[in-house]
Structures are given as C-alpha cells and as structure tokens.
C-alpha cells in the first residue's frame, strides 16, 4: 500500500504552480503579456531564496574572506567555505578542495586548457572535442593548441546530433592528451554518454573534461559516477547568480596543474625572486572571489535539494514531448537535434523563414526564446543553417506555456508567409 501511494505520488507529485510561486520574475510581463520564459538554457531564473541569500549576505554578512582577524570576516569565510562543501556534496566530489570557484563554465574550461596545456601539451599532441561544442569549449583549446603546436581533433556527429563511440575510439591515439566534451548540448539537447567515453579514455590514461553547463539544472550530476577528471558548470544556469561557476577537478590532476592566474589568495610565500603557491583549491583562486555568488549558489543547491529530481525530470520530459509533437504539426518546421537521449529543449527551423523573424514575433507575444547560432557556429555549418529558434524548458515551465509557444509560432508563420 505504501509503495502504491509512493508511485502514485511520484506521478502527480509535480506541482508546477507551487514551483512557479518561488520565482518572482515569472509573475512579470513582456510587451504587456504574461512572461513565457523559454530561454533557461541561456540562463535560468532565480527563486526568491537565492535572491534573499544574496541581499541578506550584503546586508548583514559581507567582509573579505580568508584574511580578516575579526568576527565578520571569519563568518564570511565560513559561509564561503560552507558553499564549497555544499557544491562538493551536490556533485559528490571526494574532497572539498576539488571544488574551485570560478566565474563560470567558460573560465573553468580556460583554466584547465591553459594550465593543462602549459604542463602537458607538446607539438603534435592532440586534444579531442566534439562537433557540438559551445564556443567556450572550442576556442580555449584552439588558443592553447596554437601556443604549443598541438592539434584539435573533432569527433563528428550524425544527423540526429549524436556521436558514435566507435568513432571516438578510432580517433583516440597515443598523441591524444585530453578529451573535452559537452555533457548536454545547448544547441541540440543531445545528452552525451560521458561515462562510456571516460571508460574508454581512462584505458588509455587520457583525462576527460565534461562541460556540464546544461546538465546541473536538470538532474543529478555525480562526478564519481561519471568518473570525469574535470567538470565545468555555471551557477546562473542552475537557478543561482551570474558570475559564479565551478571547476571540479580530481585531486591528482589539480595537484599536478600549474596555477592559471597569479595574485593574492593563491600564494604561500612571495619574494621578487620566487613565489610558492597555496594549497588546493586556493592555488586556483587568485584575488578576491565572488563571495556573494558562492552564497547564492549554495542557496540554489539547497533549493534543488528540496525538490524531487524524478518529479522534475518526468515533468520536463512531458514538456519536451508536447513541444516536439505540436511543433512538428506546423508545416515547414524541422527540429534540429533529434538524439535518442535528449534534454528538455527544442531547436528548430521553419522552412523559408529566418529565425530572427520568428523570435521577434514571439517576443511581442510575451514569449522569450533564443534565436541565432547559440554560440555553436561550427555546428550550424554542419546542419547547413545559420541559426535556429531554441525553446528550452526548466522545472517551472508549464504545458500551457508550450501551447502558447506553438500558437505563437503558428501566428508568426502565418504573418510571415
């Protein structure tokens, strides 16, 4: 009986209106119409608890960390380090010093690219990425590959927007020094088989970085399950503040890598001749960190801890299914990214119509979507398009909003034809 109640509860457990009530911005309007926010993949909205944590911190707790002798500074330091432990628990890292606070996914990847490159990349070495990467997982590697004469190898994708594990295996060789791969594609929605890639890579002692920017807001990301060597993600895409993000790195790697930026906080002893570096994670945290951001991120994680991951995922699946089915009923619509394993976003084009035009006409109906190349120009080239319209869903979106999107696209298409 208890079991039955539980399963029934799981199916109906998602009270989306209750969730929406936590996000004040969802009660606002755009062009005089209730806001339909379908751009969470670019940046998610913030629950009141995160907003409160930020303002409470600035109103009552702010001081610089790791250096004051007074109570306020010690308390701020405690809060900052508590946030680190919260992140450690959230991703199930073994140690809290494996969690480095950075500005976001972009900075995390740049950090690894530069520090790893400096220590390990030699002329002729290879770094592997996929064809579906965000620019932030392409350009940093291009930069360091140029610096050290290494080569960027790109894992191709099929028409659905999936990579093939056999191909990855074929492309791996003894010059491969690192594989950096997106966990969930922001432009296609594809969920990549990170664990399988990691297993293959580790057999050849190749470390793997996962770009988790799109993953952490939609389900459990467990670094020990995935066994990734590095994980990069951004607070602002998981209901936290902007300007804070995480680089997770396995202790053995972070110990090996040289510092990225120099400055205060990251040193042990400085003379003009020589500097010795602080221990982990401070070696990678030069300068005053984003203390408020870390506290806001902790509040976002606490928020996520209190909701049912299964409930959220089954809700997001319903949104995806409804959007996919209904959009495909509109003549001329083609969905870009049809992977078997797909996250809750739809990237699409309408034959003969520019995404900008659809985006503009949706905007006037109060519907926020993203149009353009989604910072993945090489990927757009592969599909032979210049951009798509992307509607991305989060735990607070409703089926009624999907209906509004579909009606909005229908109206736009009619106006433009």
């Amino acid at each position, binding site marked *: 009986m208890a079991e039955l109640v539980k399963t029934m509860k799981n199916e109906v457990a998602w009270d989306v209106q209750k969730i929406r009530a936590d996000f004040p911005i969802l009660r606002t309007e755009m*062009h005089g119409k209730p806001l339909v926010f379908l751009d969470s993949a670019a940046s998610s909205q913030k629950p009141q608890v995160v907003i409160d944590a930020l303002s409470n911190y600035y109103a009552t707790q702010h001081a610089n960390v790791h250096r004051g002798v007074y109570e306020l500074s010690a308390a701020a330091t405690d809060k900052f380090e508590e946030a680190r432990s919260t992140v450690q628990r959230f991703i199930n890292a073994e140690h809290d010093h494996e969690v480095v606070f950075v500005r976001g996914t972009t900075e995390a990847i740049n950090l690894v690219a530069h520090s790893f490159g400096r220590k390990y990349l030699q002329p002729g070495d290879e770094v592997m990425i996929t064809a579906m990467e965000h620019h932030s997982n392409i350009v940093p590697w291009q930069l360091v590959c140029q610096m050290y004469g290494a080569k960027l190898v790109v894992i191709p994708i099929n028409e659905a927007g999936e990579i093939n594990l056999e191909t990855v295996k074929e492309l791996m060789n003894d010059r491969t020094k690192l594989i950096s791969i997106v966990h969930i594609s922001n432009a296609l929605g594809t969920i990549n088989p990170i664990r399988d890639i990691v297993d293959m890579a580790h057999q050849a002692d190749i470390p793997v970085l996962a770009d988790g920017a799109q993953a952490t807001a939609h389900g459990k990301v467990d670094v020990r399950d995935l066994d990734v060597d590095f994980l990069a993600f951004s607070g602002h895409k998981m209901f936290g503040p902007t300007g804070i993000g995480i680089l997770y790195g396995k202790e053995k790697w972070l110990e090996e890598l040289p510092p990225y930026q120099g400055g205060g906080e990251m040193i042990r002893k400085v003379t003009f001749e020589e500097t010795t570096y602080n221990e982990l994670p401070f070696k990678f945290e030069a300068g005053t960190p984003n203390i408020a951001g870390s506290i806001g991120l902790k509040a976002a994680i606490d928020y996520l801890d209190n909701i049912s991951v299964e409930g959220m995922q089954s809700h997001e699946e319903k949104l995806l299914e409804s959007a996919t089915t209904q959009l495909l009923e509109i003549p001329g619509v083609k969905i870009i990214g049809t992977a078997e394993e797909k996250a809750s976003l739809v990237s699409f084009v309408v034959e003969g119509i520019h995404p*900008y035009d659809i985006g*503009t006409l949706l905007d*006037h109906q109060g519907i926020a979507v993203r149009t353009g190349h989604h910072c993945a120009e090489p990927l757009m080239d592969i599909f032979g398009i*210049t951009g798509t319209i992307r509607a991305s869903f989060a735990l607070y979106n409703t089926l009624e909003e999907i209906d509004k999107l579909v009606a909005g696209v229908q109206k736009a298409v009619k106006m*433009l034809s």
Partner: protein
Amino acid sequence: MSIDEIQNEIVDEFAFFDDWTEKYEYIIDLGKNLPLIDEQYKDEDHLIRGCQSKVWLHAERQDQQVHFTADSDAMITRGIIAMLIRVLNDQPASDIASSDLFFIEKIGLRDHLSQTRSNGLTNMIKQMKMYGLAIEASK
C-alpha cells in the same frame, strides 16, 4: 521631400495601427516589396554582419546625392531597411550625414537597433551616414 518630412510621414502612417500585429504585418509587407539589390552586390564586400541577421548595402553616388540599395536575410530586418531607404535615399549627402533618425523610436522599433539585437541594422545606419560624409568631404 526632406529627410524629416518623410520621417514624419512614416510616423503618421504608423499612428493608424491599433496593435503590434498590424504594425508588424505592415513591416513584413514592406520587407517583401523591398526593391531588390543587384545580385552582384550581395557579396562579402557589401555584407554587414550581425549576429542574428545579415544585411547587404550598396551605395551609389549620383552627383551630390546618394542612391542606396540593400537587402537582408530576415524579413523584419528587410522591412526596416525599406523604411531607412525611403528616408535616406537620393537625399543630399550632407543631409544624410547629419540626419537624426527619430522615426525609429517614434514608431516603437528602437529595440531593433539595439546592439543586443545585433541584426546588422545599427551598423547599416552608420555605414549610410559614412557614405554621406565621404561624399560631402570630397566636394
């Protein structure tokens, strides 16, 4: 008609629209009827790149005036281009260079010219004025 007279005329036309749908239907119509740019000018040299949409602009000097043709890959951008051309086309170079394009704000399209939209229009206007300036300077 002078640049400002045409601008006022456009503002008056837009006053008739009751809602955004009518307004955009009109802009889309203008876009569809934009006189075509000569295909040979739709090349890299004439391209003004925006992150969202592309714009091609060609200018031809006719004595002290400038004749513009342009195109875009997005229809709403084309519609706005049609209006810009209507305002600035075949005007004296010096007037183009010093023009204040107030009609855009008055008809509620300022959004489309913000940098964030990045549809090429802002740079297109800059480019049109530059042509005016260059011709004026070469007098």
